[in-house]
């Protein structure tokens, strides 16, 4: 059915944008804790990468709109429509990060401005991830309006976002073994809990149905999707852990982390695509 609703563009958006926001959070924290100015400047440059990741997702989300010319009215729904909240949070986050990245090109960009700016942008990143995870809380759509929707999205963003952050840190020549190990651990934990949440959701789907159909019949292949998520996720984590080896040259480290990030994004994309197939109202 062609209804103007394009699951592919929305799956790309909800995969890339929250992961980009997580990666930005990590870079911002690394920048706040940077021991010297040279490190800080290299992180400032690389902030373009999580920004581009999130922006790419945001642009993808706009491609499914029939009449984007009317898009500015979106802010009239802030407070009532969860989608409006999401778009507002996205715009604030992207504006703060994009503007920061450009301003940071100024020579002698003072830490007195950079630090509070990054703190505010980090809060915007958290708000953006939260609003995205709640954007599908429509009471009339019982397959979306569950606790699994935000939990799955946030855990997936953490899993992929931390691997992206590892990649971006390598690009910025930031080598902090403790931070790297912490990110890897967080990614692994997010994958394990993300899998657990998906399996619980699969069991929960059996309880959801409407007059005409059951939730399980909408995604007969859900166990396969979960298996794909697990396999791609384990592959991504394995490459991520491999990339921590000290013997690896920087170029090799970047290549391995690119591969890890791609696998992680593919894992999340599979789950996000299935999420849109799960659409069903309480009616028929």
């Amino acid at each position, binding site marked *: 059915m062609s209804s103007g*609703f394009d699951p592919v563009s929305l799956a790309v958006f909800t995969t890339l944008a929250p992961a980009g926001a997580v990666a930005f959070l990590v870079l911002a924290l690394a920048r706040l804790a940077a021991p010297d100015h040279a490190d800080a400047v290299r992180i400032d440059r690389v902030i373009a990468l999580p920004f581009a990741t999130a922006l790419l997702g945001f642009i993808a989300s706009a491609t499914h709109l*029939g009449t984007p010319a*009317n898009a500015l*009215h979106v802010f*009239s729904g802030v407070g009532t429509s969860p989608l409006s909240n999401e778009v507002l949070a996205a715009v604030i986050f992207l504006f703060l990060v994009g503007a920061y990245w450009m301003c940071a090109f100024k020579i002698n960009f003072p830490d007195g401005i950079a630090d509070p700016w990054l703190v505010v942008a980090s809060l915007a990143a958290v708000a953006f991830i939260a609003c995205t995870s709640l954007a599908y809380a*429509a009471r009339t*759509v019982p397959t979306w309006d569950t606790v699994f929707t935000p939990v799955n999205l946030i855990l997936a963003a953490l899993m992929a976002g931390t691997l992206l952050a590892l990649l971006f840190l390598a690009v910025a020549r930031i080598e902090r073994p403790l931070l790297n190990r912490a990110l890897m651990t967080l990614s692994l934990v997010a994958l394990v809990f993300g899998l657990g949440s998906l399996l619980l959701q699969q069991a929960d789907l059996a309880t959801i149905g*409407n007059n005409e159909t059951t939730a399980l019949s909408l995604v007969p292949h859900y166990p396969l999707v979960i298996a794909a998520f697990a396999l791609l996720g384990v592959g991504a984590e394995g490459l991520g852990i491999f990339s921590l080896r000290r013997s690896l040259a920087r170029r090799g480290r970047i290549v391995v982390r690119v591969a890890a990030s791609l696998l992680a994004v593919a894992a999340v994309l599979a789950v996000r695509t299935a999420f849109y197939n799960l659409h069903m109202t309480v009616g028929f």
Partner: protein
Amino acid sequence: MTQYGFYFDSTRCTGCRTCEMACKDYNDLPVSYAYRRVFDYEGGDWTDNGDGTYKPTTFAYHVSMACNHCEMPACMANCPQGALDKDPDTGLVVHDDEKCIGCATCVNSCPYEVPVVDTEVMKSRKCDGCASRTAEGQAPICVEACPLRALEFGDIEALRAAHPEAVDAIAPMAAPDQTHPSTAILPCPAAKEPGDTTGAIANPLEVENAA
């Protein structure tokens, strides 16, 4: 505020689709979607009486449904654009083309699958209760077209008072607790409660709004 809505007498409806066609004609709608649709709800079985005879439990009835102009419309609640609103005088759910971006959030959130995104104009479309006709004191075109006089339109509280046997919903409609549809439906003897699983929509392709 007066809340306007439709009364539907399912004891009279023969499923002739005149309401649907009159609406499509009046609103110049394409082949692929309709503002008012007639659902054929059918089901049942044969039960073995054990003595060589069988007893049928089959049933079939029609539900003619346009926009239910809900008291708490899910389309309006979820629209990020504020493009759907309730008319302050009539309570009808009206759509503003100037604000619509065609994102299909209304399509996804309405439990009655009423709104549809027209892929020609890439904006959502729905029944407006024939606002221009009712403003002149005329009934909506579907109401006037029904040869069985199974449809009425007006102040929904007055309609409910005039038809005390009427209920808010019958299958396959969603249970009314989510959006409080402004509907009054006189159930025919075969009619099932919302959430019924003994029957199914027998004409799913016909009632699917394909945009």
